[in-house]
């Protein structure tokens, strides 16, 4: 059998179709951009997608876990904001060193996530409300710390923030991208290859069955929200690196962007089905839509919204139709 035959004979698995469809559309969108706008074709545009969205990627990875269990986490945007504000406060006002701030912030994020997990699991409050409470709470904490954005002039942060990792040619990425990719890889590994990961899928498939199958549903569910809180805090730290500042208004509406990225990436909101790789693609879709519009540069504000919606529609519907036709 020749390689060609093998390629011809390749039939993607049913559940991989949405992902493949999305990937194909991304490539198409990129080629379209490259042929229409100068400088779009330079690889850095793609890398910038990662640089600009590194923090979002980390947040969305946490969200993927939550959504896979059939839950939802609305608190991520606020937790991101809280992390940036706490970092700024600890670094600027309290004079903490960077390497003490990082674990502290991560611990706060995880603790908030844990709290929401307990509300959901132990007190049986619907995830939507429990995390909405978390959203209010974290945002409220931001404001009590500061109603003002302020810069971080810590030299370590500044040097980390401005470090560019060269990839040859004119291309480079940031430290944030490396962190994000490590998180993605770790998440993919956990979801695919560990009992915890499989339990996440099982809960999403049918929580009652998972319980009757003897899985530790309670602990897993709480862990998933803790993990999401942790990822949000980590995303917040990446945002601190990205902007060298803390801002209580950071991440307003971020939860929707993250959810949208996860869902566009093919994960079912009802849980039990989806991949981290899909989430990466979902973020790329949102990012490339924005990049196309920026490169075009002729749209005024409302046309920006309308075209964004239209492109979103095109992506989602094509994805859907491709997925369906080959069924």
């Amino acid at each position, binding site marked *: 059998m020749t390689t060609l035959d093998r390629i011809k004979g390749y039939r993607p698995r049913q559940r991989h179709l949405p992902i493949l469809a999305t990937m194909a559309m991304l490539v198409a969108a990129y080629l379209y951009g490259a042929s229409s*706008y100068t400088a779009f074709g330079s690889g850095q545009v793609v890398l910038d997608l990662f640089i*600009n969205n590194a923090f979002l990627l980390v947040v969305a990875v946490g969200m993927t876990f939550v959504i896979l269990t059939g839950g939802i986490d609305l608190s991520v945007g606020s937790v991101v904001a809280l992390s940036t504000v706490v970092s700024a406060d600890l670094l600027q006002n309290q004079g903490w060193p960077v390497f003490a701030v990082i674990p502290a912030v991560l611990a706060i994020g995880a603790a908030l996530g844990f709290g929401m997990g307990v509300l959901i699991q132990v007190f049986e409050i619907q995830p939507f409300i429990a995390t909405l409470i978390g959203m209010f709470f974290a945002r409220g904490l931001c404001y009590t710390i500061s109603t*003002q954005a302020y810069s971080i002039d810590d030299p370590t942060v500044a040097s980390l923030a401005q470090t560019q990792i060269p990839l040859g040619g004119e291309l480079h990425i940031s430290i944030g991208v490396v962190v994000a990719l490590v998180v993605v890889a770790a998440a993919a590994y956990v979801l695919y290859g560990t009992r915890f990961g499989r339990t996440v899928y099982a809960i999403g498939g049918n929580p009652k069955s998972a319980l009757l199958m003897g899985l530790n549903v309670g602990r897993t569910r709480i862990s998933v929200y803790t993990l999401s809180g942790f990822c949000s805090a980590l995303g917040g730290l990446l945002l601190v690196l990205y902007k060298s500042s803390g801002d*209580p208004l950071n991440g307003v509406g971020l939860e929707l962007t993250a959810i949208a990225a996860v869902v566009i990436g093919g994960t079912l909101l009802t849980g039990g089905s989806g991949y981290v790789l899909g989430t990466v693609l979902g973020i790329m879709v949102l990012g490339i839509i924005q990049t196309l519009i920026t490169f075009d*540069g*002729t749209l*005024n*504000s409302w046309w920006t919204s309308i075209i964004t919606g239209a492109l979103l529609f095109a992506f989602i519907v094509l994805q859907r139709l491709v997925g369906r036709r080959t069924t």
Partner: protein
Amino acid sequence: GGGGAGGGGALTLGFAQVGAESGWRTANTKSIQESAKAAGIELKFSDAQQKQENQIAAIRSYIQQKVKVIAFSPVVESGWDTVLKEAKTANIPVILTDRAVDSPDKSLYKTFLGSDFVAEGKKAGEWLAKEFGSAAGDVSIVELQGTTGSAPANDRKKGFADVIASNPKFKVVASQTGEFTRAKGKEVMEAFLKSQPKIDVLYAHNDDMALGAIEAIEAAGKVPGKDIKIVSVDGVRDALQALADGKINHVVECNPLLGPQLMELVKKVAAGEQVPPRIETTETEFDQAAAKAALPQRQY
């Protein structure tokens, strides 16, 4: 499409706008777009929908596109160093409009063109001090703040508070966010009217909230501009109309029409000319007479 950007010929300006959150902002955008056209500058415009991340992404894409000049209205003051350094490395001059950034490294941008929110708050406070200078007894003030955490809200509150602090008879009896919108301004004012026994003055961080509050005051059977004096910031058309009608007493202008000034600067900066590091837009204050005079030409 068509590969328009960069290149040698035309002067390209990449402008990263905050969003379209208010009529004021729309007027600002329109002014920039129109004057770019008039000045023969090719404009790459992007709307960040109030998100700093989007603005940074847009600036990065301008760097990729090798525009000649980048200009933007920062969503917030902090957090620009990294991307501005990238612009500097790429040798693209940056102009700030509307708001400043707080970077200590002043070499990251060529100039700042815009208003001073603190000064606006001060002007409102000064008008109040004058208007009630002779009044006997305490003056009860209610304040409608902008979106919590936003720069104009923080600064206009601060400037105002600084001025009235000098006289103990001025008392801010209630201060709440009206989120810069008419609807919230009205809703909050309705609550103030019920919880505060005496209100002499309303200070609103923008005109829209003042306009909303006027309706609440009228619905409560009071006369805006008389029973409760009103001072607000911005100077949009509807507010000047209300001022002319006597429903608002004073408006501090925050001028959105900085397009022509910006294009001048862009040309200079692109040509490598020296420009002053800070340029304040021409801004006035309106009383009733000035409002009547200004109304016919008011575009926004």
